[in-house]
Protein backbone atom coordinates (compact mmCIF):
# COMPACT_ATOMS: atom_id res chain seq x y z
CA UNK A 1 0.00 0.00 0.00
CA UNK A 2 1.69 3.21 -1.15
CA UNK A 3 1.84 6.38 0.89
CA UNK A 4 0.13 8.19 -1.94
CA UNK A 5 -2.87 5.86 -1.76
CA UNK A 6 -3.15 6.30 1.97
CA UNK A 7 -3.09 10.08 1.64
CA UNK A 8 -5.78 10.05 -1.05
CA UNK A 9 -7.92 7.83 1.17
CA UNK A 10 -7.48 10.12 4.13
CA UNK A 11 -8.55 13.05 1.98
CA UNK A 12 -11.56 11.06 0.82
CA UNK A 13 -12.38 10.51 4.46
CA UNK A 14 -12.31 14.25 4.86
CA UNK A 15 -14.84 14.59 2.00
CA UNK A 16 -17.23 12.14 3.59
CA UNK A 17 -16.57 13.79 6.93
CA UNK A 18 -17.46 17.21 5.47
CA UNK A 19 -20.86 15.96 4.37
CA UNK A 20 -21.42 14.38 7.78
CA UNK A 21 -20.50 17.67 9.43
CA UNK A 22 -23.05 19.66 7.42
CA UNK A 23 -25.83 17.17 8.14
CA UNK A 24 -24.88 16.66 11.78
CA UNK A 25 -24.82 20.41 12.44
CA UNK A 26 -28.42 20.68 11.23
CA UNK A 27 -29.49 17.59 13.18
CA UNK A 28 -27.72 18.91 16.23
CA UNK A 29 -29.31 22.38 16.36
CA UNK A 30 -32.79 21.05 15.57
CA UNK A 31 -32.32 18.41 18.22
CA UNK A 32 -31.10 20.95 20.75
CA UNK A 33 -34.04 23.25 20.14
CA UNK A 34 -36.89 20.78 19.81
CA UNK A 35 -35.55 17.71 21.57
CA UNK A 36 -36.39 15.54 18.56
CA UNK A 37 -34.57 13.46 16.02
CA UNK A 38 -35.43 14.72 12.59
CA UNK A 39 -35.90 11.49 10.65
CA UNK A 40 -36.61 13.49 7.52
CA UNK A 41 -33.14 15.03 7.59
CA UNK A 42 -31.68 12.44 5.22
CA UNK A 43 -34.60 12.84 2.84
CA UNK A 44 -34.10 16.62 2.93
CA UNK A 45 -30.45 16.07 2.01
CA UNK A 46 -31.63 13.94 -0.93
CA UNK A 47 -34.15 16.57 -2.03
CA UNK A 48 -31.28 19.09 -2.04
CA UNK A 49 -29.35 16.91 -4.48
CA UNK A 50 -32.41 16.48 -6.73
CA UNK A 51 -33.16 20.20 -6.69
CA UNK A 52 -29.56 20.85 -7.75
CA UNK A 53 -30.12 18.38 -10.58
CA UNK A 54 -33.39 20.05 -11.59
CA UNK A 55 -31.84 23.51 -11.57
CA UNK A 56 -28.74 22.59 -13.54
CA UNK A 57 -30.42 20.22 -15.99
CA UNK A 58 -33.64 22.08 -16.74
CA UNK A 59 -33.54 25.69 -15.55
CA UNK A 60 -30.13 27.33 -15.48
CA UNK A 61 -27.19 25.10 -16.40
CA UNK A 62 -24.94 26.65 -13.81
CA UNK A 63 -23.72 24.84 -10.72
CA UNK A 64 -23.06 28.06 -8.82
CA UNK A 65 -26.66 29.19 -9.14
CA UNK A 66 -27.78 25.84 -7.74
CA UNK A 67 -25.21 26.05 -4.96
CA UNK A 68 -26.61 29.39 -3.80
CA UNK A 69 -30.32 29.06 -4.59
CA UNK A 70 -31.06 25.48 -3.51
CA UNK A 71 -29.92 25.84 0.12
CA UNK A 72 -31.78 29.15 0.41
CA UNK A 73 -34.91 27.65 -1.11
CA UNK A 74 -34.64 24.63 1.18
CA UNK A 75 -34.23 26.89 4.20
CA UNK A 76 -37.44 28.70 3.21
CA UNK A 77 -39.12 25.32 2.82
CA UNK A 78 -37.92 24.36 6.28
CA UNK A 79 -39.32 27.58 7.72
CA UNK A 80 -42.70 26.86 6.08
CA UNK A 81 -42.65 23.31 7.42
CA UNK A 82 -42.10 24.66 10.91
CA UNK A 83 -44.77 27.34 10.68
CA UNK A 84 -47.43 25.15 9.09
CA UNK A 85 -46.91 21.79 10.81
CA UNK A 86 -44.24 21.38 13.47
CA UNK A 87 -45.40 24.39 15.49
CA UNK A 88 -48.68 22.65 16.26
CA UNK A 89 -46.93 19.66 17.77
CA UNK A 90 -44.71 21.19 20.43
CA UNK A 91 -47.00 20.65 23.38
CA UNK A 92 -47.06 16.92 22.60
CA UNK A 93 -44.42 14.40 23.68
CA UNK A 94 -41.44 14.51 21.26
CA UNK A 95 -42.41 11.04 20.10
CA UNK A 96 -45.20 12.47 17.96
CA UNK A 97 -42.98 15.00 16.24
CA UNK A 98 -40.60 12.19 15.39
CA UNK A 99 -43.47 10.14 14.00
CA UNK A 100 -44.33 13.15 11.86
CA UNK A 101 -40.79 13.46 10.51
CA UNK A 102 -40.73 9.71 9.83
CA UNK A 103 -43.89 10.10 7.73
CA UNK A 104 -42.37 13.11 6.01
CA UNK A 105 -39.32 11.05 5.09
CA UNK A 106 -41.49 8.40 3.41
CA UNK A 107 -43.47 11.06 1.57
CA UNK A 108 -40.41 12.92 0.27
CA UNK A 109 -38.64 9.76 -0.83
CA UNK A 110 -41.63 8.38 -2.67
CA UNK A 111 -42.48 11.74 -4.20
CA UNK A 112 -38.98 12.04 -5.68
CA UNK A 113 -39.17 8.43 -6.87
CA UNK A 114 -42.49 9.16 -8.62
CA UNK A 115 -41.04 12.21 -10.37
CA UNK A 116 -37.52 11.06 -11.24
CA UNK A 117 -37.72 7.25 -11.01
CA UNK A 118 -35.88 5.00 -8.59
CA UNK A 119 -32.77 4.53 -10.73
CA UNK A 120 -31.19 7.88 -9.93
CA UNK A 121 -30.11 10.71 -12.20
CA UNK A 122 -26.69 11.63 -13.66
CA UNK A 123 -24.85 14.60 -12.24
CA UNK A 124 -21.45 15.66 -13.50
CA UNK A 125 -18.78 17.72 -11.79
CA UNK A 126 -19.15 21.43 -12.65
CA UNK A 127 -16.78 22.38 -15.50
CA UNK A 128 -14.97 25.09 -13.52
CA UNK A 129 -14.02 22.55 -10.87
CA UNK A 130 -13.13 19.65 -13.15
CA UNK A 131 -9.61 18.28 -13.22
CA UNK A 132 -7.12 17.96 -10.42
CA UNK A 133 -4.88 20.23 -8.40
CA UNK A 134 -1.25 19.52 -7.71
CA UNK A 135 -0.84 19.78 -3.95
CA UNK A 136 2.90 19.22 -4.14
CA UNK A 137 2.74 15.76 -2.65
CA UNK A 138 -0.17 14.50 -4.74
CA UNK A 139 -2.82 15.35 -7.31
CA UNK A 140 -6.32 15.68 -5.93
CA UNK A 141 -9.62 16.39 -7.75
CA UNK A 142 -10.39 20.12 -7.66
CA UNK A 143 -14.06 19.63 -6.85
CA UNK A 144 -13.30 17.55 -3.77
CA UNK A 145 -10.83 20.10 -2.53
CA UNK A 146 -13.43 22.80 -3.08
CA UNK A 147 -15.93 20.75 -1.06
CA UNK A 148 -13.56 20.48 1.89
CA UNK A 149 -12.76 24.20 1.86
CA UNK A 150 -16.39 25.27 1.49
CA UNK A 151 -17.56 23.00 4.30
CA UNK A 152 -14.83 24.30 6.56
CA UNK A 153 -15.90 27.87 5.76
CA UNK A 154 -19.60 27.12 6.30
CA UNK A 155 -18.97 25.30 9.58
CA UNK A 156 -16.84 28.19 10.76
CA UNK A 157 -19.59 30.61 9.72
CA UNK A 158 -22.26 28.66 11.60
CA UNK A 159 -19.97 28.43 14.60
CA UNK A 160 -19.29 32.17 14.60
CA UNK A 161 -22.96 32.94 14.07
CA UNK A 162 -24.01 30.84 17.04
CA UNK A 163 -21.25 31.88 19.42
CA UNK A 164 -20.50 35.50 18.46
CA UNK A 165 -23.79 37.11 17.44
CA UNK A 166 -26.72 38.15 19.57
CA UNK A 167 -29.15 36.05 17.57
CA UNK A 168 -26.84 33.06 17.92
CA UNK A 169 -26.76 33.65 21.65
CA UNK A 170 -30.55 33.60 21.72
CA UNK A 171 -30.58 30.31 19.84
CA UNK A 172 -28.14 28.77 22.31
CA UNK A 173 -30.17 30.10 25.21
CA UNK A 174 -33.29 28.66 23.58
CA UNK A 175 -31.75 25.19 23.36
CA UNK A 176 -30.88 25.36 27.06
CA UNK A 177 -34.18 26.66 28.37
CA UNK A 178 -36.83 27.82 25.92
CA UNK A 179 -39.30 28.81 28.64
CA UNK A 180 -36.82 31.09 30.33
CA UNK A 181 -35.99 32.78 27.03
CA UNK A 182 -39.69 33.32 26.43
CA UNK A 183 -40.15 34.68 29.95
CA UNK A 184 -37.50 37.28 29.17
CA UNK A 185 -39.75 38.68 26.46
CA UNK A 186 -38.22 37.04 23.42
CA UNK A 187 -40.37 35.53 20.73
CA UNK A 188 -39.10 31.95 20.94
CA UNK A 189 -41.28 30.65 18.14
CA UNK A 190 -39.50 32.88 15.62
CA UNK A 191 -36.19 31.53 16.83
CA UNK A 192 -37.42 27.98 16.43
CA UNK A 193 -38.46 28.77 12.86
CA UNK A 194 -34.99 30.14 12.22
CA UNK A 195 -33.32 27.06 13.64
CA UNK A 196 -35.40 24.65 11.55
CA UNK A 197 -34.69 26.81 8.47
CA UNK A 198 -30.96 26.81 9.19
CA UNK A 199 -30.86 23.04 9.73
CA UNK A 200 -32.84 22.37 6.55
CA UNK A 201 -30.68 24.79 4.58
CA UNK A 202 -27.48 23.08 5.74
CA UNK A 203 -28.90 19.68 4.77
CA UNK A 204 -29.84 21.15 1.38
CA UNK A 205 -26.31 22.49 0.93
CA UNK A 206 -24.89 19.07 1.78
CA UNK A 207 -27.22 17.59 -0.85
CA UNK A 208 -26.02 19.99 -3.57
CA UNK A 209 -22.38 19.36 -2.68
CA UNK A 210 -22.86 15.59 -2.60
CA UNK A 211 -24.63 15.47 -5.98
CA UNK A 212 -21.47 15.38 -8.16
CA UNK A 213 -19.70 12.74 -6.04
CA UNK A 214 -22.47 10.42 -4.89
CA UNK A 215 -25.20 8.57 -6.74
CA UNK A 216 -28.21 10.89 -6.84
CA UNK A 217 -31.05 8.49 -6.07
CA UNK A 218 -34.18 8.60 -3.89
CA UNK A 219 -32.76 6.52 -1.04
CA UNK A 220 -29.34 8.20 -0.91
CA UNK A 221 -30.11 9.97 2.37
CA UNK A 222 -31.65 7.06 4.21
CA UNK A 223 -28.62 5.17 5.47
CA UNK A 224 -26.45 8.28 5.36
CA UNK A 225 -28.71 9.72 8.03
CA UNK A 226 -28.01 6.85 10.41
CA UNK A 227 -24.27 7.45 9.99
CA UNK A 228 -24.99 11.03 11.03
CA UNK A 229 -26.68 9.74 14.18
CA UNK A 230 -23.41 7.99 14.97
CA UNK A 231 -21.64 11.31 14.41
CA UNK A 232 -23.94 13.08 16.84
CA UNK A 233 -23.69 10.30 19.42
CA UNK A 234 -19.88 10.30 19.26
CA UNK A 235 -19.67 14.09 19.24
CA UNK A 236 -22.12 14.48 22.10
CA UNK A 237 -25.73 15.58 21.91
CA UNK A 238 -26.27 19.28 21.49
CA UNK A 239 -22.62 20.12 20.96
CA UNK A 240 -21.70 21.92 17.73
CA UNK A 241 -18.00 21.30 18.17
CA UNK A 242 -18.81 17.66 18.81
CA UNK A 243 -20.75 17.42 15.54
CA UNK A 244 -17.82 18.85 13.60
CA UNK A 245 -15.15 16.71 15.23
CA UNK A 246 -17.42 13.64 15.25
CA UNK A 247 -18.15 14.09 11.55
CA UNK A 248 -14.47 14.17 10.66
CA UNK A 249 -13.70 11.18 12.91
CA UNK A 250 -16.45 9.05 11.38
CA UNK A 251 -15.44 10.05 7.85
CA UNK A 252 -11.85 9.04 8.53
CA UNK A 253 -12.86 5.75 10.18
CA UNK A 254 -14.74 4.78 7.04
CA UNK A 255 -11.79 5.85 4.86
CA UNK A 256 -9.37 3.77 6.92
CA UNK A 257 -11.86 0.90 6.94
CA UNK A 258 -11.97 0.95 3.14
CA UNK A 259 -8.18 0.60 3.08
CA UNK A 260 -8.02 -2.18 5.62
CA UNK A 261 -11.09 -4.34 5.03
CA UNK A 262 -13.61 -2.83 2.59
CA UNK A 263 -16.66 -4.98 3.42
CA UNK A 264 -16.45 -3.95 7.05
CA UNK A 265 -15.92 -0.23 6.44
CA UNK A 266 -19.47 0.74 7.36
CA UNK A 267 -19.76 -1.70 10.24
CA UNK A 268 -16.60 -0.28 11.75
CA UNK A 269 -18.18 3.02 12.76
CA UNK A 270 -20.86 1.25 14.78
CA UNK A 271 -18.29 -0.89 16.56
CA UNK A 272 -16.28 2.25 17.24
CA UNK A 273 -19.38 3.92 18.60
CA UNK A 274 -20.10 0.98 20.91
CA UNK A 275 -16.55 0.99 22.26
CA UNK A 276 -16.53 4.75 22.55
CA UNK A 277 -19.77 4.84 24.52
CA UNK A 278 -18.32 2.50 27.10
CA UNK A 279 -15.50 4.97 27.71
CA UNK A 280 -17.42 8.21 27.32
CA UNK A 281 -21.15 7.54 27.68
CA UNK A 282 -22.12 11.07 26.62
CA UNK A 283 -19.79 11.30 23.66
CA UNK A 284 -16.99 13.80 23.28
CA UNK A 285 -18.69 16.97 24.46
CA UNK A 286 -22.14 15.82 25.59
CA UNK A 287 -23.53 17.60 28.62
CA UNK A 288 -25.13 15.89 31.55
CA UNK A 289 -28.93 15.84 31.72
CA UNK A 290 -29.32 17.41 28.29
CA UNK A 291 -32.67 16.16 26.95
CA UNK A 292 -32.19 12.90 28.81
Amino acid at each position, binding site marked *: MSGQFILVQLFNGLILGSLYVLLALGLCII*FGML*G*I*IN*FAHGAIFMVGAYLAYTVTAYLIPNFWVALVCVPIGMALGGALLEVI*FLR*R*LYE*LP*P*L*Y*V*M*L*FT*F*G*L*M*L*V*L*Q*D*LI*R*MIFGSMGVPFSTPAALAGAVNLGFMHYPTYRLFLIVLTAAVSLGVWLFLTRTKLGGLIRAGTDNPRMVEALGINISRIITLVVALGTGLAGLAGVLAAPIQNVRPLMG*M*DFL*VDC*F*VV*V*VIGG*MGSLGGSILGGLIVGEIIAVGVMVWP*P*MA*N*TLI*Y*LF*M*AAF*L*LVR*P*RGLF*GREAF*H*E
Partner: protein
Amino acid sequence: MPRSQAYVLGSFIVLAVLFPHVAPYKALASEVLIFALFAMAYDLVLGYGGMLSFGHAAFFGIGAYTTGIILLRVTPSIPLALVGAVVFSSLAALFVGYASIRRHGIYFTMVTLAFAQMFYFIAFKWTGLTGGDDGLQGVPRPDLGPLSLHSETHLYYFILALVAVSMFVIVRVVNSPVGTTLQALRENRDRAMSVGYNVDRFRLIAFVISGCFSGLAGGLYALMLNMVPLGALHWTTSGEVVVMTITGGMGSLFGPVLGAVAIILLRDIISNYTESWSFFMGLIFMGAVFGFRGGIVGLLRSTIARLR
Protein backbone atom coordinates in the same frame (compact mmCIF):
# COMPACT_ATOMS: atom_id res chain seq x y z
CA MET B 1 -61.61 -11.23 34.32
CA PRO B 2 -64.51 -8.77 34.01
CA ARG B 3 -67.27 -9.81 31.66
CA SER B 4 -66.64 -7.01 29.13
CA GLN B 5 -62.99 -8.05 28.81
CA ALA B 6 -64.03 -11.65 28.33
CA TYR B 7 -66.33 -10.58 25.48
CA VAL B 8 -63.53 -8.63 23.82
CA LEU B 9 -61.10 -11.52 24.19
CA GLY B 10 -63.73 -13.97 22.92
CA SER B 11 -64.44 -11.92 19.83
CA PHE B 12 -60.70 -11.53 19.23
CA ILE B 13 -60.34 -15.33 19.25
CA VAL B 14 -63.31 -15.87 16.93
CA LEU B 15 -61.96 -13.24 14.54
CA ALA B 16 -58.47 -14.71 14.61
CA VAL B 17 -59.80 -18.19 13.81
CA LEU B 18 -62.01 -16.95 10.96
CA PHE B 19 -59.49 -14.42 9.68
CA PRO B 20 -57.72 -16.46 6.94
CA HIS B 21 -61.09 -17.26 5.37
CA VAL B 22 -62.07 -13.61 4.98
CA ALA B 23 -58.62 -12.13 4.25
CA PRO B 24 -57.88 -11.54 0.54
CA TYR B 25 -55.12 -14.17 0.72
CA LYS B 26 -53.87 -16.46 3.48
CA ALA B 27 -50.32 -15.11 3.70
CA LEU B 28 -51.70 -11.66 4.47
CA ALA B 29 -53.48 -13.07 7.51
CA SER B 30 -50.23 -14.67 8.68
CA GLU B 31 -48.35 -11.42 8.13
CA VAL B 32 -50.89 -9.53 10.22
CA LEU B 33 -50.41 -12.00 13.09
CA ILE B 34 -46.63 -11.80 12.90
CA PHE B 35 -46.57 -8.03 13.04
CA ALA B 36 -49.21 -8.03 15.77
CA LEU B 37 -46.82 -10.09 17.91
CA PHE B 38 -43.89 -7.87 16.95
CA ALA B 39 -45.81 -4.72 17.88
CA MET B 40 -46.99 -6.20 21.17
CA ALA B 41 -43.44 -7.19 22.08
CA TYR B 42 -42.31 -3.71 21.15
CA ASP B 43 -44.96 -2.13 23.35
CA LEU B 44 -43.27 -3.77 26.32
CA VAL B 45 -40.31 -1.48 25.70
CA LEU B 46 -42.06 1.69 24.52
CA GLY B 47 -45.39 1.62 26.28
CA TYR B 48 -44.34 0.00 29.55
CA GLY B 49 -40.64 0.76 29.73
CA GLY B 50 -40.95 4.26 28.29
CA MET B 51 -37.94 3.57 26.04
CA LEU B 52 -38.19 4.65 22.42
CA SER B 53 -36.07 1.95 20.80
CA PHE B 54 -35.40 2.42 17.14
CA GLY B 55 -33.43 -0.78 16.87
CA HIS B 56 -36.02 -3.52 17.03
CA ALA B 57 -35.50 -4.41 13.40
CA ALA B 58 -32.26 -6.00 14.61
CA PHE B 59 -34.07 -8.54 16.79
CA PHE B 60 -36.80 -9.19 14.24
CA GLY B 61 -34.20 -9.57 11.49
CA ILE B 62 -31.83 -11.72 13.53
CA GLY B 63 -34.76 -14.00 14.40
CA ALA B 64 -35.66 -14.26 10.73
CA TYR B 65 -32.09 -14.92 9.57
CA THR B 66 -31.41 -17.45 12.34
CA THR B 67 -34.52 -19.41 11.45
CA GLY B 68 -33.70 -19.24 7.76
CA ILE B 69 -30.06 -20.25 8.17
CA ILE B 70 -30.85 -23.15 10.52
CA LEU B 71 -33.56 -24.53 8.22
CA LEU B 72 -31.43 -24.06 5.13
CA ARG B 73 -27.98 -25.09 6.32
CA VAL B 74 -28.17 -26.89 9.68
CA THR B 75 -31.23 -29.04 10.18
CA PRO B 76 -34.74 -29.01 8.73
CA SER B 77 -36.47 -28.73 12.09
CA ILE B 78 -38.89 -25.88 12.70
CA PRO B 79 -38.85 -26.11 16.51
CA LEU B 80 -35.05 -25.96 16.56
CA ALA B 81 -35.04 -23.09 14.09
CA LEU B 82 -37.50 -21.05 16.14
CA VAL B 83 -35.68 -21.79 19.39
CA GLY B 84 -32.51 -20.62 17.65
CA ALA B 85 -34.29 -17.43 16.59
CA VAL B 86 -35.38 -16.75 20.16
CA VAL B 87 -31.94 -17.48 21.60
CA PHE B 88 -29.97 -15.38 19.14
CA SER B 89 -32.33 -12.43 19.17
CA SER B 90 -32.33 -12.46 22.97
CA LEU B 91 -28.53 -12.46 22.98
CA ALA B 92 -28.51 -9.56 20.52
CA ALA B 93 -31.01 -7.71 22.71
CA LEU B 94 -28.82 -8.36 25.73
CA PHE B 95 -25.80 -6.91 23.90
CA VAL B 96 -27.60 -3.86 22.48
CA GLY B 97 -29.52 -3.35 25.71
CA TYR B 98 -26.44 -3.58 27.87
CA ALA B 99 -24.63 -0.98 25.76
CA SER B 100 -27.53 1.44 25.48
CA ILE B 101 -29.74 1.05 28.54
CA ARG B 102 -27.88 3.58 30.66
CA ARG B 103 -28.65 6.21 28.05
CA HIS B 104 -32.04 7.83 28.32
CA GLY B 105 -34.37 9.74 26.04
CA ILE B 106 -33.21 10.54 22.54
CA TYR B 107 -29.73 9.22 23.22
CA PHE B 108 -31.16 5.76 23.77
CA THR B 109 -33.11 6.02 20.51
CA MET B 110 -30.05 6.93 18.48
CA VAL B 111 -27.80 4.31 20.04
CA THR B 112 -30.29 1.49 19.50
CA LEU B 113 -30.79 2.67 15.93
CA ALA B 114 -27.08 2.72 15.26
CA PHE B 115 -26.58 -0.79 16.66
CA ALA B 116 -29.41 -2.12 14.54
CA GLN B 117 -27.75 -0.57 11.51
CA MET B 118 -24.56 -2.43 12.41
CA PHE B 119 -26.38 -5.76 12.13
CA TYR B 120 -27.90 -4.58 8.87
CA PHE B 121 -24.48 -3.89 7.36
CA ILE B 122 -23.10 -7.20 8.59
CA ALA B 123 -25.97 -9.06 6.90
CA PHE B 124 -25.59 -6.88 3.80
CA LYS B 125 -21.88 -7.67 3.39
CA TRP B 126 -21.73 -11.26 4.65
CA THR B 127 -23.27 -12.59 1.47
CA GLY B 128 -21.99 -16.14 1.98
CA LEU B 129 -24.16 -16.54 5.05
CA THR B 130 -27.10 -14.25 4.40
CA GLY B 131 -27.38 -13.84 0.64
CA GLY B 132 -26.65 -10.13 1.02
CA ASP B 133 -28.82 -7.72 -0.91
CA ASP B 134 -30.93 -10.51 -2.48
CA GLY B 135 -31.95 -11.79 0.92
CA LEU B 136 -31.80 -15.41 2.06
CA GLN B 137 -33.67 -17.28 -0.63
CA GLY B 138 -35.41 -20.64 -0.51
CA VAL B 139 -36.00 -21.14 3.20
CA PRO B 140 -37.73 -24.56 3.39
CA ARG B 141 -40.85 -25.25 5.39
CA PRO B 142 -40.38 -28.83 6.64
CA ASP B 143 -43.22 -30.86 8.10
CA LEU B 144 -43.91 -30.55 11.78
CA GLY B 145 -44.35 -34.18 12.78
CA PRO B 146 -47.62 -35.26 11.13
CA LEU B 147 -48.55 -31.67 10.27
CA SER B 148 -47.61 -30.38 6.83
CA LEU B 149 -47.00 -26.64 6.79
CA HIS B 150 -47.00 -26.36 3.02
CA SER B 151 -50.61 -25.28 3.13
CA GLU B 152 -50.86 -21.58 3.96
CA THR B 153 -53.90 -22.31 6.13
CA HIS B 154 -52.00 -24.82 8.23
CA LEU B 155 -49.15 -22.35 8.60
CA TYR B 156 -51.59 -19.66 9.68
CA TYR B 157 -52.98 -21.78 12.49
CA PHE B 158 -49.48 -22.82 13.53
CA ILE B 159 -48.50 -19.14 13.71
CA LEU B 160 -51.75 -18.31 15.49
CA ALA B 161 -51.01 -20.88 18.19
CA LEU B 162 -47.50 -19.57 18.79
CA VAL B 163 -48.59 -15.93 18.68
CA ALA B 164 -51.44 -16.60 21.11
CA VAL B 165 -49.11 -18.32 23.60
CA SER B 166 -46.56 -15.51 23.25
CA MET B 167 -49.20 -12.85 23.79
CA PHE B 168 -50.42 -14.66 26.88
CA VAL B 169 -46.86 -14.69 28.23
CA ILE B 170 -46.40 -10.98 27.45
CA VAL B 171 -49.63 -10.11 29.26
CA ARG B 172 -48.44 -12.15 32.22
CA VAL B 173 -45.10 -10.35 32.19
CA VAL B 174 -46.83 -6.97 32.24
CA ASN B 175 -48.95 -7.98 35.22
CA SER B 176 -46.06 -9.62 37.05
CA PRO B 177 -43.95 -7.80 39.64
CA VAL B 178 -41.43 -7.06 36.91
CA GLY B 179 -44.11 -5.44 34.79
CA THR B 180 -45.56 -3.33 37.56
CA THR B 181 -42.08 -2.23 38.62
CA LEU B 182 -41.41 -1.25 35.04
CA GLN B 183 -44.52 0.92 34.99
CA ALA B 184 -43.49 2.49 38.27
CA LEU B 185 -40.13 3.35 36.73
CA ARG B 186 -41.82 4.87 33.70
CA GLU B 187 -44.14 6.98 35.82
CA ASN B 188 -41.56 8.27 38.27
CA ARG B 189 -37.99 7.16 37.87
CA ASP B 190 -36.63 9.09 40.84
CA ARG B 191 -39.22 7.82 43.26
CA ALA B 192 -38.80 4.21 42.14
CA MET B 193 -35.05 4.57 42.51
CA SER B 194 -35.35 5.97 46.00
CA VAL B 195 -37.49 3.00 46.98
CA GLY B 196 -34.49 0.95 45.99
CA TYR B 197 -35.25 -0.44 42.56
CA ASN B 198 -32.35 -0.93 40.18
CA VAL B 199 -33.74 1.00 37.23
CA ASP B 200 -31.32 -0.19 34.60
CA ARG B 201 -31.75 -3.84 35.49
CA PHE B 202 -35.53 -3.73 35.04
CA ARG B 203 -35.21 -1.81 31.82
CA LEU B 204 -32.74 -4.39 30.54
CA ILE B 205 -35.05 -7.27 31.50
CA ALA B 206 -37.91 -5.66 29.58
CA PHE B 207 -35.65 -4.99 26.63
CA VAL B 208 -34.45 -8.59 26.42
CA ILE B 209 -37.96 -10.06 26.77
CA SER B 210 -39.12 -7.71 24.05
CA GLY B 211 -36.18 -8.68 21.84
CA CYS B 212 -36.90 -12.35 22.41
CA PHE B 213 -40.50 -12.15 21.16
CA SER B 214 -39.48 -9.83 18.32
CA GLY B 215 -37.07 -12.56 17.29
CA LEU B 216 -39.82 -15.17 17.39
CA ALA B 217 -41.97 -12.91 15.19
CA GLY B 218 -38.99 -12.64 12.83
CA GLY B 219 -38.57 -16.40 12.72
CA LEU B 220 -42.24 -16.86 11.81
CA TYR B 221 -41.80 -14.17 9.15
CA ALA B 222 -39.04 -16.24 7.52
CA LEU B 223 -41.36 -19.28 7.50
CA MET B 224 -44.21 -17.29 6.04
CA LEU B 225 -42.17 -15.74 3.22
CA ASN B 226 -40.00 -18.83 2.55
CA MET B 227 -37.15 -16.33 2.51
CA VAL B 228 -35.61 -13.52 4.52
CA PRO B 229 -35.51 -10.13 2.82
CA LEU B 230 -32.59 -7.89 3.81
CA GLY B 231 -35.20 -5.22 4.52
CA ALA B 232 -36.25 -7.11 7.67
CA LEU B 233 -33.09 -5.76 9.29
CA HIS B 234 -33.35 -2.26 7.87
CA TRP B 235 -34.11 0.58 10.26
CA THR B 236 -37.36 1.36 8.45
CA THR B 237 -38.66 -1.94 9.88
CA SER B 238 -37.98 -0.48 13.32
CA GLY B 239 -39.82 2.65 12.22
CA GLU B 240 -42.79 0.56 11.11
CA VAL B 241 -43.17 -1.21 14.43
CA VAL B 242 -42.93 2.14 16.24
CA VAL B 243 -45.66 3.51 14.01
CA MET B 244 -47.87 0.45 14.53
CA THR B 245 -47.49 0.75 18.28
CA ILE B 246 -48.26 4.45 18.36
CA THR B 247 -51.18 4.38 15.94
CA GLY B 248 -52.63 1.46 17.87
CA GLY B 249 -52.17 3.13 21.23
CA MET B 250 -49.01 2.45 23.18
CA GLY B 251 -48.99 1.05 26.68
CA SER B 252 -52.12 -1.01 26.12
CA LEU B 253 -50.67 -4.21 24.56
CA PHE B 254 -53.79 -4.83 22.47
CA GLY B 255 -53.60 -1.35 20.98
CA PRO B 256 -50.37 -2.18 19.11
CA VAL B 257 -52.03 -5.38 17.90
CA LEU B 258 -54.84 -3.30 16.40
CA GLY B 259 -52.26 -0.89 15.01
CA ALA B 260 -50.42 -3.72 13.28
CA VAL B 261 -53.67 -5.12 11.85
CA ALA B 262 -54.72 -1.68 10.61
CA ILE B 263 -51.41 -0.77 9.01
CA ILE B 264 -50.73 -4.12 7.32
CA LEU B 265 -54.27 -4.25 5.90
CA LEU B 266 -54.19 -0.60 4.86
CA ARG B 267 -50.87 -1.07 3.10
CA ASP B 268 -52.24 -4.09 1.29
CA ILE B 269 -55.29 -2.16 0.15
CA ILE B 270 -53.31 0.88 -0.97
CA SER B 271 -50.74 -1.23 -2.82
CA ASN B 272 -53.59 -2.71 -4.85
CA TYR B 273 -54.24 0.70 -6.34
CA THR B 274 -50.87 2.36 -6.57
CA GLU B 275 -47.18 1.56 -6.57
CA SER B 276 -46.44 4.55 -4.37
CA TRP B 277 -48.04 3.16 -1.24
CA SER B 278 -45.23 4.44 0.93
CA PHE B 279 -46.15 7.98 -0.09
CA PHE B 280 -49.68 7.46 1.19
CA MET B 281 -48.54 5.62 4.31
CA GLY B 282 -46.28 8.58 5.06
CA LEU B 283 -49.19 10.97 4.64
CA ILE B 284 -51.29 8.82 6.96
CA PHE B 285 -48.56 8.86 9.63
CA MET B 286 -48.23 12.62 9.35
CA GLY B 287 -51.99 13.02 9.59
CA ALA B 288 -52.29 10.54 12.45
CA VAL B 289 -50.11 12.78 14.59
CA PHE B 290 -52.66 15.55 14.15
CA GLY B 291 -55.67 13.30 14.29
CA PHE B 292 -55.89 10.72 17.05
CA ARG B 293 -53.12 10.82 19.58
CA GLY B 294 -54.42 8.13 21.89
CA GLY B 295 -54.20 5.74 18.95
CA ILE B 296 -56.95 3.39 17.85
CA VAL B 297 -57.44 2.26 21.43
CA GLY B 298 -57.91 5.86 22.59
CA LEU B 299 -60.41 6.40 19.80
CA LEU B 300 -62.36 3.28 20.79
CA ARG B 301 -62.34 4.23 24.46
CA SER B 302 -63.65 7.73 23.86
CA THR B 303 -66.31 6.39 21.47
CA ILE B 304 -67.46 3.86 24.04
CA ALA B 305 -67.47 6.54 26.74
CA ARG B 306 -69.63 8.76 24.52
CA LEU B 307 -72.10 5.94 23.81
CA ARG B 308 -72.58 5.41 27.54
